[in-house]
């Protein structure tokens, strides 16, 4: 008996560890950009974000004063001062004079640079350089040093990204695209779903089959004809072809099959007795829909709204085709893609922008997860 309890304890412990590892793999990457977006931009490239609470060591370069500052002392020529000048002092751990070996000498030691020259650089930044020959030249000796700075967290990155990099503007654009593109399909789909579930008319079965077929049609099939159509309409009426109206309608079109499918299967499952007793009381289809079906369908409408909101907010392909890849009207995802090209190595810009693009979906997701899961379960054949 004791053996079996021990075994079950071990296996239960194993389950906890395994789940913990999975959770770590799934959350650490996102945590990485959140932490990085709050760090000082010099520290981001100086140390990994997982070290961001420790002092970070970075290698910097400085220059000693020119020859004109030298004094002669005991037959030697001497340059003295502090490498940080008037800047706040940092803690120097090592220094060097070659870029290939920037941390050759520990701080506080006297380095022999050859030709009778020596250099001592202390932890507080003060230095003494001596030479048996007079120093010459306008430019002082170049010195490399590793200094450690205390961890520094800041919201500067958010200021920069929102107001100078155009992410703030794109954020508004994303809202402008997403909200109408979420609201418009709901009503259109709800009426169609009711008709397909509860009204009898010829061709109904065929229509349902077509909608289920359209669920999985790849978006790629629609892009070229619609691009041509939009360009044609644009030049015919002399209006721009890349407009918000265009993308609202496009997202409505692409979202409709799933909306109708999801709403129909829910509405078809409502109890028949309610509909029939309402009909006997003389209610028309319109009244039944507005007064009975719509209120009862609230959960599924919410599910679809969350789906469509996340899908439109996160979409890149439709946005790039129908709004373009640059300009004032592009959405967050397209802007982030553009920044990946133009600011490829500037991680303070990229991590901060990425976090801003995912923060809205995360809020929606966490506050309305129940409806989201319900939608997933009801409509897991969604193609998009």
């Amino acid at each position, binding site marked *: 008996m004791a053996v079996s309890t021990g075994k079950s304890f071990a296996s239960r412990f194993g389950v906890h560890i395994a789940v913990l590892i999975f959770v770590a793999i799934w959350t650490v990457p996102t945590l990485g950009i959140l932490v990085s977006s709050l760090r000082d931009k010099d520290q981001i490239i100086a140390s*990994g974000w997982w070290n961001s609470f420790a002092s970070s060591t970075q290698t910097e370069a400085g220059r000693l004063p020119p020859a004109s500052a030298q004094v002669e002392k005991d037959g030697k020529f001497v340059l003295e001062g502090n490498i940080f000048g008037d800047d706040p002092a940092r803690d120097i751990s090592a220094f060097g004079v070659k870029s290939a070996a920037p941390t050759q000498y520990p701080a506080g030691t006297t380095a022999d640079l050859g030709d009778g020259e020596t250099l001592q650089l202390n932890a507080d930044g003060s230095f003494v350089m001596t030479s048996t020959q007079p120093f010459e030249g306008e430019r002082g000796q170049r010195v490399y040093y590793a200094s450690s700075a205390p961890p520094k967290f800041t919201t500067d990155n958010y200021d920069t990204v929102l107001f100078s990099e155009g992410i703030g503007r794109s954020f508004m654009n994303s*809202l402008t695209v997403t909200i109408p593109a979420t609201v418009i399909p709901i009503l259109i789909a709800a009426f169609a779903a009711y*008709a397909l579930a509860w009204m009898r*008319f010829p061709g109904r*079965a065929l229509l349902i089959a077509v909608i289920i077929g359209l669920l999985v049609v790849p978006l790629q099939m629609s892009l070229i004809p619609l691009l041509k159509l939009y360009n044609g309409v644009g030049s015919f009426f002399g209006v721009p072809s890349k407009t918000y109206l265009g993308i*609202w*309608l496009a997202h409505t079109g692409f979202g*409709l099959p799933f909306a109708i499918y999801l709403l129909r299967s829910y509405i078809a499952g409502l109890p028949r007795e309610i509909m029939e007793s309402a009909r006997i009381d003389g209610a028309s289809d319109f009244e039944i829909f507005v007064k009975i079906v719509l209120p009862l369908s609230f959960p599924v409408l919410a599910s679809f709204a969350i789906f469509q909101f996340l899908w439109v907010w996160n979409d890149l392909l439709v946005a790039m085709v129908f709004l373009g890849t640059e300009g004032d009207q592009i959405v967050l995802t397209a802007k982030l893609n553009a920044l990946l090209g133009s600011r490829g190595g500037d991680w303070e810009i990229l*991590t901060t922008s990425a976090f801003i693009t995912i923060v809205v979906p995360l809020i929606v997701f966490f506050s309305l997860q129940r409806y989201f899961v319900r939608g*997933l379960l009801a409509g897991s054949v969604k193609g998009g």
Partner: protein
Amino acid sequence: MAAQIFSAIFVIIAGVGGCVAYFWGANRLVDIIFPSRGVAGAAAIDNLRRQGLIRPWLFVGPAMIILTIYLIYPVVETLRLSFLDRGGADFVGFANYEWALGDREFRSSILNNIIWLAVVPAACTFLGLIIAVLTDKIWWGTIAKSLIFLPLAISFVGASVIWKFIYEYRGAGQTQIGLLNAIIQYFGGQPQVWISLPFWNNFFLMIILIWIQTGFAMVILSSALRGIPEETLEAAVIDGANPFQIFWKIMVPQIWGTIAVVWTTITILVLKVFDIVLTMTNGQWNSQVLANLMFDWMFRGGGDFGRGATIAIIIMIAVIPIMVWNIRQANKETGGH
């Protein structure tokens, strides 16, 4: 910016108002033209019948019009364009398809797509199933599931930035700021430029999609597992089955249908994978896939609509079996009416 907010609000009100006005107005119009109240019995019945004929079409009409413009017409038009030249003016027969078969980049895309199809749905389903089973057994399982589910809300572009940061490369011996290379260097390995490693870079891109989609598989499979009757599991335990036997011989066979649904859903998604490849490599270093190649040809050198349409058709052909299966399933469920 204020103007933009105003116009967005205006559109929402106008759009919703327009929809409501249409449905209400059209409905009213039918009642007025074919009155069923206040007329003689025979005429009333006649009018009621006419109403019944027209009203469904008023309800499904707007949806049908939008679906026709945005999905049905484009499918036909894309098929037509795939037989035309780059500008869509001259008929070129199967020239675009012949070009595709001979094109090195296209072939490499097909190959990569096949690898994606072989790896991603399997990995997501498998991991999702394991996590669903494990989290069911512990008290903090719901929280764990929420956290693993979370990447599903993140855009593919956002996820690409997140993982690009993980894969970030600095020369050997330098401080690595990418987590993966830091770990490798910590254990004495050589840091690598993961996203340009020939062949293996595909897998580093796939990890991103697996990371996003595992939560989806987990949620669906977890609810299917809950549907397994308690008695079958208890009977298996009494018969002395070990946890692995219970998992493979009792649980998995009972949720086979759900596994198939998850698998096909992710398969469709994989066929259309675009954002990840565009933002991570843009198809360089042999990581091209069909959806990104298609987008590329839409705009490359002013755009070649013939070739772009051809690639779209090939993606479509891959989807058709799933489409037919879906329609059959749905017909079975609704009893064919």
